[in-house]
């Protein structure tokens, strides 16, 4: 093995890891933010619609209660999906880290 600049390798790896973490985190954050905004928006619209439908006699109080329960169940499904997406991002980060180290070391050794 010839002269290897370990400080340089560390610096390259560090910068690569930071880029990878930011990219992975941003992808997840963007998805989660989009989901959050959409949920709030649809919740607002749905509640207004259901209140009006109840007032007009288009739905019964029992149906309204069921709809509210379904809304809560859907939010739980969204939360489960987000938990799954977070795990997937960790897996992607781990895969990316393996590639980064392999590529960085292959380039200098």
């Amino acid at each position, binding site marked *: 093995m010839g002269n*290897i600049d*370990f*400080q340089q*390798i*560390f610096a390259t790896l560090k910068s690569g890891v930071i880029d990878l973490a930011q990219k992975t985190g941003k992808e997840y954050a963007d998805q989660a933010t989009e989901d959050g905004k959409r949920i709030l928006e649809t919740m607002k619209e*749905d509640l207004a*619609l*259901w209140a009006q*439908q109840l007032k007009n006699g*288009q*739905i*019964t109080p*029992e*149906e309204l209660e*069921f*709809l509210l*329960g*379904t*809304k*809560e*169940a*859907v939010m*739980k*499904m*969204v939360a*489960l*999906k987000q*938990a*799954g*997406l977070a*795990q*997937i991002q*960790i*897996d*992607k980060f*781990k*895969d990316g*880290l*393996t590639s980064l*180290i*392999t590529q960085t*070391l292959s380039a200098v050794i």
Partner: protein
Amino acid sequence: MRERFTLIRTCLLTLLLAGCASSMSVFDQYAYTQVTSVKVDALNVIDLGTEDYAKHKQEADAVQTQMQKAYEYEKNRPKNPITAEMWRNMLDTNGKLYGGFVRFWRKQNAAGKSLNSAFIEDERKQIGEAFDQIAQLESNKIKK
């Protein structure tokens, strides 16, 4: 020399950590096809909700069976507890998704009440969104 040892040790540890098996199951085309297919059938049954439950019990049960099969498949895939939990929620007759909807339909009819079309439309939209969460999680899984 010390720096070299530290670098190799750090890299090996990192590779070991990164090489550890994924924490989540990988993408499964069959699972994805299954959720999108069951969604269509389930929403078609929900559309019948303004009519008598007794008249459509067979269709409602058939979808329930399809969903039970999907749940069993997901439950037995390794590292897949989240998707399995999502299917369990869809099936739960004490919940407020498909299983709960069918129970509500049956109970309302048994009490001499029929479901309103506006309710069916609202419920269809929400349960469709619940199915979409399962499909979106599956489609985001790592493809290997």
